[in-house]
């Protein structure tokens, strides 16, 4: 059974335990052993990178070094954590001087980073290590015909030389459930989550534009693989209602929730009640069968 270091970050467990639970349950069914990493904390978010580059390198190098000890890949369900770990790994892999500086600090707690560890998004590990064929074999309630728009997330896709992630991974994963992947013009656009602290109006506008683009393309709901994007597209629909007077009613689900439902798990098992916009379309699909 493939075994992984699970880096959960701080946002998923605090804000989206439904995402956490669905991820664990799906992984178990797929035969993936996810082990929570010991002694780790937050990735610091892009804000830490912005204000304290060296501190950001250090805290993430520490996480990488802890993961490196047992030789298993690090996987995470959060695009923010993914980007932080990938970025720091990439930088230190290509900058010996900084790697040396970082290791001098890590030595104090008995750690050393060689940059051998591999970091991936947890759904990427499902894609590469389990594979579409094996995932399809476990689908008992296919989502035929349900139209889903994917929001990939900026920090999952870009910069490509760092993230090494292609959008097709999510497309194929979603299609494996039988759903239809909706194409929409603003598929690459940011959800606005990062600018929330400094300019809320702008953040709301970006979420509005994104959701409108999905809705115009006749999406029945949206899929995300990041708690920040999820928050911004799901919860922000209430903010949009206030500022724009528009109600999109577009449910936003995390990929493992969608996969779990297609594997026959119940809505309670994946905490569907915690998604803010009620996820009726997907449930109607099941009950109408």
């Amino acid at each position: 059974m493939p075994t992984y270091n699970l880096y959960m970050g701080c946002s998923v467990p605090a804000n989206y335990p439904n995402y956490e639970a669905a991820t664990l349950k799906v992984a178990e069914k797929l035969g993936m052993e996810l082990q929570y990493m010991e002694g780790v904390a937050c990735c610091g978010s892009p804000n830490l990178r912005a204000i304290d580059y060296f501190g950001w390198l250090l805290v993430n190098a520490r996480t990488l070094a802890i993961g490196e000890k047992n030789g298993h890949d690090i996987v995470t369900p959060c695009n923010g954590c993914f980007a932080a770990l990938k970025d720091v790994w990439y930088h230190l892999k290509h900058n010996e001087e900084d790697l040396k500086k970082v290791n001098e600090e890590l030595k104090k707690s008995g750690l050393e980073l060689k940059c051998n560890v591999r970091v991936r998004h947890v759904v990427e590990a499902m894609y590469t290590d389990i594979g579409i064929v094996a995932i399809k074999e476990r689908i008992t309630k296919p989502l035929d015909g349900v139209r889903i728009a994917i929001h990939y997330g900026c920090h999952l896709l870009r910069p490509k030389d760092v993230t090494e992630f292609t959008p097709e991974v999510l497309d194929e994963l979603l299609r494996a459930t039988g759903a239809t992947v909706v194409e929409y013009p603003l598929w690459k656009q940011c959800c606005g989550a990062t600018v929330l602290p400094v300019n809320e109006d702008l953040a709301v506008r970006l979420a509005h534009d994104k959701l409108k683009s999905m809705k115009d393309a006749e999406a029945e709901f949206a899929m995300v693989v990041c708690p920040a994007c999820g928050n911004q597209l799901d919860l922000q629909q209430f903010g949009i209602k206030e500022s724009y007077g528009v109600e999109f009613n577009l449910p936003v689900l995390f990929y493992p929730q969608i996969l779990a439902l297609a594997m026959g798990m119940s809505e309670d098992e994946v905490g569907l009640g915690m998604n803010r916009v009620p996820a009726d379309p997907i449930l109607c699909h099941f009950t109408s069968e």
Partner: protein
Amino acid sequence: MAETDDKTGPPVTLIEPIDMTKLDPNFRKEIQNMPDGDEVNACFACSTCTAACPIANQWKYKPHQLIRMILLGMREEVLSSREIWECLTCFQCQERCPQGVRVTDIIFDLRDLASEEGKIPDAVKFLAKELLEKGQLYVVTADWEREDLDLEPEVPGLSTDEFKEILKRTRTGKIAGGE
């Protein structure tokens, strides 16, 4: 065309004239020496980055101008600009730059430089404090929700002490402590 004969004022230009005495010729080098600045000289001012940017329309300084301002040495204007903090870090500009300029990464570097000088928006300063005090941005409060979903009430393996210790010694400590 009588008014074009009147040559009393300064010549009409498309952009505000730049005060040459305020330029910092070392700024370009400074950026080049940062983690992502290697390619900044390769910018040929095509504005592709600006065309790719979803929010440039509301900015005084568009992404291609920020890069140009770095090359010209307009250090003060760039580091005090609201643009560098409003950037979504969505990497759309960087992805499309035909010259391989790491536009978004450079904006991160600019924030780092601005932070060194204490030029940080209050909201971001607040986040620095949160990180230092809590060791994470979000803390589990509704542990019953986790239990309902068959999760451990406390996040397994979580340990924030070392994280806080590290940031106390780096710049975050100064930013959060220095008020």
